[in-house]
């Protein structure tokens, strides 16, 4: 919509005719809107309410009211700077206006009014007014632009303020005296100084950080973190300062460090495993060479009894040693892969420790070193506990073996006592002792193996590691006390609730009793697919005038069992074609009363359960212990 440009004029004249003629002249030449006032009073009202572009006043000489009107106009709100043209007589002079009147906006036209003169004056004034109006419009537009820019600037500042406030990176301004002049919230958080803030604190003058670098930062609780720092030169309140940005990378760094450590440990572990394998292979080869070597020597025909006896003893000794190593390795493998199964049952602890005592009393090393062996336990005849007897025995034997090994002279004592809800075992020696710094390493199998082999650490070094794992699997704890030059005591506990300790169960795991061999004419069926194993058993029981039947597989076994009147079956459970289990089941259906002893390759506890569940009466572990076999055969044949 185009606004009409027009000028607003006020005519103040007490002559109505004058007003009419003036109105006519002006409006026919210019776009105007004219108000008229016949008296001062009228004029004042109009001046109060309208803003004019031009005011004409008819004024008489020495006319005080006219002057007053001019003053009124200049004091008004709407018209204070409006050009005021006085229509007056010739004698009028601007200088006659009082001092208070601003002469800048006052002009005059003398009477009588010349029309041309009037028009000229009007034209001049309107041009000026137009220019002023245009100027005002431009000014307004400039104001708008300025305002828009201010708004944008304010918004931009708000954005930056938010960025600084919400930034997760610490943002600080430090002046050249090292004093912190500004910090954002993240900064206070980084140094853990939200309470007092950081402003005013001394940071220090910062050097050499123009590029990104890492710096250790210290929090208010003494914690040390790592920051990624960038510094930029800037100004703060007119003085040079440094803008510092810090990213807290403590977690990153720690993660990195942990990763490096884990890698190192993995590599170490790898290296140790290789050492373990190399060592183990040596451990196995040595006794094996012994067995093969001495066996070859035995084959010679011209040997005296003493020599033969010596070779045989050596072979047995090497064989047993080999067996120990292999058992240990299997134990370790099972423990590592969480496959070791604990099989708990009730057994007499008193009987067990006594048995172990008897064994050790006559142990070679004990005898040769003249060691005193003692056994201590609470004054009871029996103590039945619920645990895994095989493993408990293994642990005690392990610890005793070590004690005897490392004690050159003096005493080895062992036993147990009640400590609250636990049974606490001990094995004490007067050996060379272990320094405190080695306590943690003592149970590590790998540690021992890296040391060079010498008399001081003979043996495969796996015993303690296995013992510890077993103790833990039995819900116990194991530890040691030692003093170099005095001796060492190993302790381990087993949880045993008093209620578990009850009367001796029916079956006894008693000491190995003498064999009353009376197998004469008994019919024994040996089911075994491997020749060597069969020949061994045959050799063992041949002297007793038994009648031996040999089945090489399950089918044969069932056949013979059905046809003959068998007194005892020795069944190898791992057979070709029909398995031992199937054979046993089948035999049981027709002949339930034949005693069957299962042969298992390794006395794993689940094997035991399996063979008993299949219908066997007992089991014996391979390699077969002669005495044990005799014992069991005695049980079933007599």
């Amino acid at each position, binding site marked *: 919509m185009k606004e009409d440009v027009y000028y607003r004029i006020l005519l103040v004249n007490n002559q109505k005719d004058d007003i009419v003629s003036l109105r006519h002249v002006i409006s026919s030449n210019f776009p105007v809107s004219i108000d008229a006032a016949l008296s001062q009073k009228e004029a004042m009202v109009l001046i109060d309410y309208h803003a004019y572009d031009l005011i004409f006043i008819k004024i008489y000489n020495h006319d005080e009211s006219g002057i007053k009107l001019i003053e009124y106009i200049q004091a008004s709100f709407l018209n204070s700077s409006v050009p005021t043209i006085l229509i007056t007589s010739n004698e009028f002079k601007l200088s006659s206006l009082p001092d208070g009147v601003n002469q800048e906006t006052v002009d005059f036209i003398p009477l009588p009014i010349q029309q041309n003169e009037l028009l000229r004056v009007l034209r001049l004034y309107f041009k000026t007014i137009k220019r002023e109006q245009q100027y005002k419009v431009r000014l307004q537009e400039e104001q708008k632009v300025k305002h828009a820019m201010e708004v944008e600037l304010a918004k931009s500042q708000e954005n930056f303020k938010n960025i600084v406030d919400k930034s997760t990176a610490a943002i600080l301004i430090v002046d050249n005296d090292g004093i912190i002049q500004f910090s954002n919230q993240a900064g206070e958080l980084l140094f853990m100084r939200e309470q007092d803030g950081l402003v005013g*604190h001394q940071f*220090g003058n910062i050097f050499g950080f123009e590029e990104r670098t890492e710096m*250790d930062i210290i929090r208010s609780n003494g914690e040390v973190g790592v920051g990624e720092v960038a510094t930029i030169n800037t100004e703060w309140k007119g003085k040079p300062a440094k803008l510092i940005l810090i990213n807290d990378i403590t977690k990153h760094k720690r993660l990195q460090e942990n990763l490096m450590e884990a890698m190192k440990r993995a590599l170490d572990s790898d290296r140790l495993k290789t050492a373990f394998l190399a060592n183990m292979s040596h451990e196995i080869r040595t006794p094996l060479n012994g067995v093969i070597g001495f066996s070859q020597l035995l084959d010679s025909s011209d040997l005296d009894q003493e020599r033969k006896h010596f070779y045989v003893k050596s072979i047995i000794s090497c064989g047993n040693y080999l067996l120990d190593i292999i058992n240990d390795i299997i134990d370790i493998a099972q423990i590592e892969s969480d496959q070791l199964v604990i099989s708990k049952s009730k057994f007499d602890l008193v009987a067990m420790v006594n048995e172990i005592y008897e064994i050790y009393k006559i142990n070679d090393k004990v005898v040769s070193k003249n060691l005193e062996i003692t056994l201590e336990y609470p004054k009871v005849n029996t103590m039945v506990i619920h645990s895994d007897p095989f493993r408990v025995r293994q642990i005690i034997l392990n610890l005793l073996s070590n004690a005897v090994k490392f004690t050159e002279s003096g005493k080895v004592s062992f036993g147990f006592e009640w400590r609250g809800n636990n049974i606490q075992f001990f094995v004490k020696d007067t050996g060379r002792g272990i320094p405190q710094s080695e306590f943690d390493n003592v149970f590590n199998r790998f540690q021992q193996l890296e040391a060079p082999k010498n008399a001081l650490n003979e043996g495969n070094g796996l015993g303690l590691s296995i013992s510890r794992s077993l103790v833990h699997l039995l819900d116990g704890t194991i530890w040691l006390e030692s003093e170099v030059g005095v001796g060492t005591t190993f302790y381990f506990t087993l949880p045993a609730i008093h209620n578990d300790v009850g009367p001796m169960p029916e079956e006894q795991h008693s000491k190995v009793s003498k064999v009353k061999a009376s197998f004469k004419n008994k019919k024994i069926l040996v089911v075994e697919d491997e020749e060597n194993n069969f020949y061994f058993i045959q050799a063992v029981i041949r002297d007793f005038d038994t009648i031996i039947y040999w089945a090489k597989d399950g089918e044969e076994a069932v056949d013979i069992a059905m046809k003959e009147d068998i007194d005892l079956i020795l069944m190898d459970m791992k057979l070709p074609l029909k398995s031992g289990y199937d054979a046993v089941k089948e035999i049981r259906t027709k002949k339930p009363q034949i005693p069957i002893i299962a042969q298992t390759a390794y006395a794993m506890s689940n094997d035991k359960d399996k063979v008993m569940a299949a219908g066997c009466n007992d089991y014996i572990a391979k390699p077969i212990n002669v005495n044990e076999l005799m014992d069991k055969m005695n049980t079933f044949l007599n």
Partner: protein
Amino acid sequence: MKPEVELRLYIIEKSASYFDTVSKLYILLDTELDNHYKLDVIDILKNPELTVEEGILASPTLVRVKPLPSKRIVGRILAKNLIDELELKESE
């Protein structure tokens, strides 16, 4: 003769740059100040309370304890001429 210059270095002993920083600092101080200085090296990890109390915010921080007023520089303290920076020598 009592040294007029007293300095305190707050640093983490087990950091990689510890040895380098401390030894170079001693060399610089010995060269420039002869024997007229006292330097205390404080391990931040072993003295956390003191470190926090002094308002030390980063490692390493070298503090000029004497002459007063106290001044501080942080970071690669050997990167510039710290003798001038900390105004350790009296100007002739």
